């Protein structure tokens, strides 16, 4: 990530929102999608992505399905009903955070 500390707290929200938009995704696909959407500005590291995915799965926000693709198995993640609800909450939290930061760093735009 370009500034990992700033983005770290939003990693779960990023994952949830991507899955909200794309139904089901696998780990590598998420890293590439984020890279493409941010034009290479944000690069999610593998060491951060998988622990985050496994944590969200453990919390019951993500469901998993393993399918055979080409000549190997692929693990897909998708949102559970709780995950879909949580995505809305997380996005609201993020929007509030951005608004607060805007008010602090650039009061004219807030």
């Amino acid at each position, binding site marked *: 990530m370009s500034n990992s500390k700033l983005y770290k707290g939003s990693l779960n929200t990023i994952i949830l929102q991507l899955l909200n938009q794309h139904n089901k995704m696998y780990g590598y696909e998420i890293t590439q999608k984020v890279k493409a959407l941010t034009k290479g500005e944000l690069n999610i590291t593998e060491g951060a992505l*998988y622990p985050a995915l496994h944590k969200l799965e453990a919390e019951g926000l993500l469901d998993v399905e393993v399918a055979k693709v080409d000549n190997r*198995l692929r693990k897909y993640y998708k949102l559970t009903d709780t995950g879909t609800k949580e995505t809305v909450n997380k996005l609201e939290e993020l929007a509030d955070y951005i608004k607060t930061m805007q008010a602090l760093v650039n009061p004219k735009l807030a």
Partner: protein
Amino acid sequence: MKLTQPQIQQLYTFTQKHYVEWYDLQTELVDHLANGIESQLANNPNTTFESALQAEFKKFGVIGFGDVIEEKTKALNKRYHHLLWGYFKGFFKLPKIIITLFLIYGCFQLLIVLPNRLWVLVPSTALLFVIPVLVMYKQFQRIKQIQKETNKKWLFDTIIFQLGGLIHFIQIVIQVAFFNINQSWCTTFSFVFSVGFVLFALAFFIAIYIVSPKLRKDMAKQHPDYKFA
């Protein structure tokens, strides 16, 4: 260019060499590495499979797959506890709370009525621990059999076998039950012990007979290669 089956197998061996022994975790990492390698080979045809693999592995950081293993273990334990807690809470709602209260009352009454509390403690601890030990022995044999037949180890099974860490608390319960055995217990202590003992027994029962089978079923549903025996 898609990787060949021998190359995929090579990736499984690679993850194993880097301390990922469990097939459920290996599968995800192998697919990730394979995607990265395929992308590198497509963008730069002069790259070799080996150098592309090393480049992909470097992306996991200095400790390699260490973080992923640690966090996955934590996440599985968390999922186990989450389920356990969910079912456990069910024993404090009607109608199951009647069973919970009855067991606490029964244990407490026996402790205060019988002249020697060992008459209660010995059979109840035996019942509480011998049965699970037998169940776990059966589990252990099952895991070994699966490993022998398929040459695969599942991190999932390891967590289930340890009952999400609950197994480590057995020792504490035994120590409290048989601590200072010649000294008599006051009524309050007998009551507190009855509550603690029944709650622990319930947690143990839920872990062995409800949570573990449920997780195995979920895994069998998720993973086509998981042999559910």
